[in-house]
C-alpha cells in the first residue's frame, strides 16, 4: 500500500522514484537510438512515433469518450495536406504550418462531432466511415490538393525561410529527433488531459452520458471537444507523416489505415495512453516486418515455398504476412481482451506478489 502525503501526488506525472527511473532510462534509449540503429530502423521508428501520436489521440476519442471512429485516416490526411500546402503555397514556416493544420483538422473533428451527438455504435461507425471516404474523395478530385496524383513534401525547413533563417532537416536522424520531441510533448499532454477536468468528463460520457449530463457536463461541448482533440492529434501526426514519407496521395489515407489505427488502440489497450503507445508500436512493427520476405528466412522460407508449390500458389506466399497479422490480432483479443496494456498490468500484479 503506497502512502500519499499530499494531494498533488495523485496528479503528478511521475508518481514514484521507480517511474522516474524508468522514464529517464527510456528517454536515454530513445535519444541515443540513432547512434546504433541504421537509417532503415529510423524510418520505422519515425513511422511508429507518428502512429503513436495518432493512436494516443484516437484513444482519447474511442477509449476514453467511447465514440467509435473509422474516419481517422481523413484527419490524418487533412494534417498532411494542410501542412504541406501551407508551407508550399503560403510559405508558412513549418511549426506554424503544422499547428494550423492540426487546428484545421480539429475543426473538421468538431464538425464530425456534431452527428456524433445523436448517433452511436454502428450508426456512428458509418458516419465516420463516410467522413473518411469523403475526405479521400474530395482530395482526389481537387487539383490544388494534387488530385489523385499526389503531393510531394517540400524540404523540411524548421526555420523561418521568409526571414532568411532557414534550417533544413535532411537526414533521418534530424527528422527522428524532431518527431521524437513532438511525440513526447503530445504524449505528456494527453496524459495531462486525461487527468484533468476534460479527461474526466470524457470518461464520464463514455460510462454514462445521462449521469454526465446531470452532474453538469455539457454533452455537446465535450463530445465535439473529444472529436476535436483527437483530430488535432491526427493532424499533428499527419503533418509529420508527410515528411517521413516525402510523398503521399489520397489512396495512402484509405479506409484500411483507419482500421489499422483502431486496431492499434484496441490491441494496445483502450483508454490508456501507455496502451496506445505499445499498440501503435506493436502493430506498426508487425505491419512492416511480420513475415515480410518470408522466402528469405532460412528453413521456414523454403518450407513454405514447398507447401505453396504443392498445394497452394507460390505467387500468393507473401500473404503469409497478412495471415500472421490477422492471427496475432485474433490471438491477442482472445487471450487478452484488454490488450497489451491489460496483459502488462496482469504481469505487474503477478510479479508484485511473486513468489506467493
Amino acid at each position, binding site marked *: 500500500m503506497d502512502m500519499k502525503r499530499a*494531494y498533488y501526488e495523485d496528479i503528478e506525472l511521475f508518481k514514484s522514484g521507480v517511474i522516474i527511473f524508468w522514464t529517464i532510462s527510456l528517454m536515454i534509449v530513445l535519444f541515443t537510438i540513432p547512434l546504433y540503429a541504421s537509417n532503415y530502423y529510423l524510418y520505422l521508428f519515425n513511422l511508429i512515433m507518428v502512429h503513436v501520436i495518432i493512436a494516443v489521440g484516437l484513444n482519447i476519442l474511442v477509449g476514453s469518450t467511447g465514440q467509435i471512429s473509422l474516419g481517422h485516416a481523413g484527419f490524418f490526411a487533412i494534417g498532411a495536406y494542410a501542412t504541406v500546402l501551407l508551407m508550399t503555397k503560403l510559405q508558412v514556416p513549418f511549426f506554424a504550418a503544422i499547428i494550423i493544420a492540426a487546428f484545421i483538422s480539429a475543426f473538421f473533428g468538431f464538425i464530425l462531432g456534431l452527428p456524433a451527438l445523436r448517433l452511436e455504435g454502428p450508426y456512428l461507425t458509418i458516419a465516420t466511415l463516410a467522413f473518411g471516404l469523403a475526405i479521400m474523395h474530395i482530395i482526389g478530385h481537387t487539383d490544388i490538393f494534387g488530385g489523385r496524383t499526389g503531393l510531394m513534401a517540400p524540404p523540411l525547413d524548421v526555420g523561418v525561410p521568409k526571414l532568411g533563417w532557414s534550417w533544413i532537416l535532411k537526414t533521418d536522424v534530424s527528422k527522428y529527433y524532431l518527431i521524437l520531441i513532438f511525440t513526447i510533448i503530445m504524449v505528456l499532454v494527453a496524459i*495531462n488531459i486525461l487527468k484533468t*477536468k*476534460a479527461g*474526466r468528463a470524457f470518461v*464520464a460520457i463514455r460510462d454514462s452520458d445521462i449521469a454526465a*449530463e*446531470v452532474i453538469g*457536463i455539457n454533452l455537446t461541448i465535450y463530445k465535439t471537444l473529444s472529436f476535436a482533440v483527437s483530430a488535432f492529434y491526427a493532424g499533428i501526426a499527419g503533418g509529420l507523416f508527410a515528411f517521413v514519407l516525402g510523398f503521399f496521395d489520397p489512396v495512402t489515407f484509405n479506409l484500411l489505415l483507419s482500421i489499422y489505427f483502431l486496431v492499434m488502440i484496441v490491441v494496445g489497450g483502450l483508454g490508456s495512453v501507455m496502451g496506445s503507445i505499445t499498440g501503435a508500436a506493436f502493430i506498426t512493427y508487425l505491419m512492416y516486418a511480420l513475415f515480410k520476405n518470408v522466402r528469405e528466412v532460412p528453413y521456414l522460407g523454403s518450407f513454405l515455398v514447398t507447401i505453396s508449390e504443392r498445394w497452394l500458389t507460390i505467387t500468393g506466399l507473401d500473404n503469409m504476412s497478412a495471415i500472421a497479422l490477422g492471427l496475432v490480432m485474433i490471438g491477442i483479443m482472445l487471450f487478452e481482451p484488454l490488450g497489451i496494456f491489460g496483459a502488462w498490468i496482469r504481469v505487474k500484479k503477478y510479479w508484485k506478489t511473486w513468489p506467493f
Partner: protein
Amino acid sequence: MGYFSIENLSISFGGLKAVNNISFSVEKNEIFSIIGPNGSGKTTIFNLISGIYKPDAGFVKLAGENMVGKTPDRIARRGIARTFQNIELFANATVMDNLMLGRHIFMKTGILGGAFMFGKRSRAAREEIAHREKVEQIIDFLELQSVRDQFVGSLAYGKRKLVEVGRALALEPKVMLLDEPSAGMNTEEKDDLTIWIKDIREDFNVTILLIEHDMNMIMGISDRVFAMSQGQKIVLGLPREVQRHPEVIKAYLGEEEII
C-alpha cells in the same frame, strides 16, 4: 410558493399519462419524500426536474427561477443534483474520479490549461488540488476512505449507492434528488444512510427530495410525504397521516412485495 416547487407538471408517453398535473412545493432544508407503487411516476418526476425529459406542461421552480426547458447540465449548475435508481456511476473510473466529476461545474481549467499542467504551481494543478481537498472532505464524511482509489465497478452495491450520493454532494447542490438510495442495502447500511441523509441536510444545508420504498426509513426522516399513484397525486402530508391514508393503502394493495 416555497423554495423549490413544481407546478402542474405533466408528461405523457404515447397516451399514457405518466405524470398528470402534479404540483407541490418544498421548503428550504426540508426532507420531502415521494412514495407510490412501482410505475406510479416517481422517477419520471425526478427526470422532469433534472431535465432528462421535457414536460408537456408545467413548471419546475427553484428559488423562483424556472428550470423547464433548460438542459440537464444547466439545471445541475443551478444547484439541483440527483442520484439514480439504477446507479449511474462512471464504472471505469475510481471513486476519487467519480467524486471529482461532481466538482466539474466548479472547475475553470480549460482543456489547454489541463494539457499543460506541468509542475505543482501551474494553475491547473493548484485548482485540481483545491478541489481534491473538497472531495476529500466528502470522502471523510461518507467514510469512503477505504475505497478511495478503487474502481467503482468493483465496489459492493451499497458502497456504490453511497458514492453516488457523494457525487451529488460534490456539486454543492441546493436541492438533492435521491432516487431509492437505500435499495439493495442491508439493514445496517440503511440505518447509516438514514443518519447521513439527516447529516447532509444539517451540514451541507441541502433540501432533499427522496424517493423511497422503505417505509421505516421514510417515517424516520421525512418532514413531509407525497404519495402518488398512476401519475396522480393521492395525498400530501405528514408521514404518519400519509401512511394511514386509505387511498395510499389501497394503492399499495394488490402490489406484492416491493424490494
